[in-house]
């Protein structure tokens, strides 16, 4: 057995600017950051998992209600938002590639596109929310759809009386899409920050961990929406 402590040759090269004191090199730092964000994403999955459980419980026990209520949601807007998010995921993945390859212009462009698509997503969400709230489709006890929005339902459903628990469906809907929306907003904040740093020229083939970790987070947000879209807009 060797003695507990052996001196090691101190590297002569200057330390890279963004290398934290407790890592030997940037590669190690990047890998650790990736590991950390993956662990955090695991946590996020369970965070949403609670709401998916609520969805499952209420859907399993009030299937008719869910079948009825999903007609209040416009699948075209949902599909549009799905496409928007897939596009933003693509540009987020591309931004990582640009950073790794040192393409600074491309990096700035892809970050900006990601940010703009995220904003577009929120704009569509705003339209959906405001339309529903305007017509009295709130959540829980404050869900009293007015005649106009009821008139937009398929003819077969207009004859049916409004179910008593419509507010429960919308409680789950607003909670899940709302929490997802908060994540989108947080992602937009992160992309603003990345954009500012990219303009400063922080990122390059050596140092791109922040671009990658934020992109991983962004893909998870996309992934959650991939489930929310069919669960609410398509099958109800």
């Amino acid at each position, binding site marked *: *057995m*060797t*003695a*507990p*402590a*052996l*001196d*090691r040759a101190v590297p002569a090269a200057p330390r890279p600017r963004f290398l*934290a*004191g*407790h890592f030997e090199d940037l590669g*190690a730092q990047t*890998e*650790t950051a990736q*590991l*950390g964000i993956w*662990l*955090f994403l*695991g*946590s*996020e999955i*369970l*965070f*949403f*998992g*609670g*709401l998916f*459980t*609520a969805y499952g*419980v209420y859907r399993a026990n009030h299937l008719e209600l869910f079948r009825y209520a999903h007609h209040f949601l416009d699948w075209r807007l949902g599909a549009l938002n799905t496409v928007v998010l897939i596009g933003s995921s693509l540009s987020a993945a591309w931004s990582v590639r640009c950073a790794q390859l040192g393409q600074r212009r491309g990096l700035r462009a892809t970050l900006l596109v990601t940010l703009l698509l995220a904003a577009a997503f929120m704009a569509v969400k705003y339209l959906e929310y405001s339309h529903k709230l305007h017509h009295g489709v709130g*959540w*829980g*006890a*404050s869900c009293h759809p007015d005649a106009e929005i009821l008139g937009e339902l398929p003819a077969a459903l207009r004859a049916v009386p409004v179910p*008593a*628990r419509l*507010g*429960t469906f919308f*409680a*789950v809907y607003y*909670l899940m899409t709302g*929490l997802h929306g908060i994540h989108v907003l947080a992602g937009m904040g992160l992309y603003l920050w990345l954009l500012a740093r990219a303009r400063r020229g922080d990122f390059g083939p050596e140092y791109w961990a922040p671009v990658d970790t934020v992109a991983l987070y962004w893909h998870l947000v996309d992934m959650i929406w991939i489930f929310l879209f069919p669960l609410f807009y398509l099958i109800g």
Partner: protein
Amino acid sequence: MIPAARAAEPAGAPAESYLAHGRGPRAWLLTLDHKRIGVMYLVVITLALLLGGVFALVLRLNLWRPGGGLVSNDTYNKLFTLHGAVMIFLFVIPGIPAALGNFVLPLQLGAKDVAFPRVNLLSFWLYAIGATLFVAVLAVGGVDTGWTLYPPYSLEDARGLGILLALAAVFVAGFSSILTGVNFIASIHRLRAPGMGWFDLPLFLWALYATGVIQIIATPVLGITAAMGFMDRLFHLGLFMPEYGGDPVLFQHFFWFYSHPAVYIMILPAMGIVSEVVSVFSRKPIFGYRYIAMSSIAIAVIGFFVWGHHMFVSGQSRWTNLVFSFLTLLVAIPSAIKTFNWLATMYKGAIDLRTPMVYVLSFFAIFGVGGLTGLFLGALATDVPLHDTYFVVAHFHFVMVGAVLTAFLAGLHYWWPKMTGRMYGEGMARLAAALVFVGFNVTFVPQFFAGVAGMPRRYATYAPAFLGWNRASTVGAFVLALGMGLALGGLLASLRSGRRAPANPWGAASLEWTTPSPPPHENFEATPRPTGPYDFTGLRRVSDEAGWIRVPAEAAP
């Protein structure tokens, strides 16, 4: 080559200790040094323990007479709620991982810090905000929902502002716990010293790893539950409130999906400390290292699927009850494995009854009782009468207070010289350990009897038939408080008058003992080369002042 003992005396030019590295409140409150963050956690956690302890004493005094009378029923209900919430969320859950774990983990890994020091600081501040919110609950008149926060009671309008603050506190404290878990797992994966393989980790780190898994997977569900409760209370969503079409039993599923694994967040690090201490003070490698490491992981995984045993009489369906009962009983197995492996470690050892070891011996007895009485509550037939009686109160205090607290004190005494650079007085510390053991048992053993006799929990008043058990319990609570006071007093006194601690006062083999006490800001003067964490061959005791040093053994096997 640097003999580890050299650093005990400030000869030459050793790096200044982390305690001296930067002064003033900013250098502490905004530090990224895991050691300082650990110490700050320790301070806040100790304050939480004192606060929760004072609540407990008032509760016990009120139960001196069957009719109560010291405080009103409402006040009693608020006190037991805050006693539970403060003790669980602010002391037991973060106690060992956040305070001791933060300090020890990078040192045992041979790393300079945790993987994400800034996240670590954020984690501390989230915890501090959560603690402040709990104190704010007190300021707005308290809540009387019980720490379990069951709706519909907890979400009625009459609970007022307090419940909203409490839910917010739970949410924030939960995120602190998640971030700690992320940090620890990433650190263990990535920051092991060169040459340290997975099975060269000290078992405390295996325990923290398993804890981290639970923190990452279970705690977010607590967060979302608190958020849903918050929204339900504010907007009457009809999730949990039957008045609006919700299902209160659903809340219980959500709550216990976190809160049962949370018990393992508490007990696993405690088991980790026991594994360290029992090996060091028997001067023998831990018996069945891999078995103990794997049983930690097994407990973490099985522990996720036993939450329903809190709901056997709550209206959960019969078949769900059967599944949960079986899974619950399964947890007994890894716990039994650990216990027998610890005992086997002592076999033919050279057992040194220093304070940490005294605490660990009392841990064996207390954890034995706590674990075995769990069988009564996992088995359906006996759980039905015992559920929500004092039997349950006694059982979980044996596990969460008795076992965790004694392990916490064992760990605190074990690493105290490393944290502070001072040795505490053995005599007083051992007396305190004995008082804690006696006081604890006098407090909680009678509660088993009261529970079997049919006394429900959360009672501000009780039938005169239970008088004797309650009086004994109250007396015990004060003995326990005295023991705790003595233990803390002894430790604090050592800060002034304690003898300087050598780098390795116990002859332990894990890496934290190869660096000076207290360690320098950078933890190690050079990248450490790990030996096995339980390889005691070659460690020789020099003197009280110099501690133990590793003699390079040419004929090492």
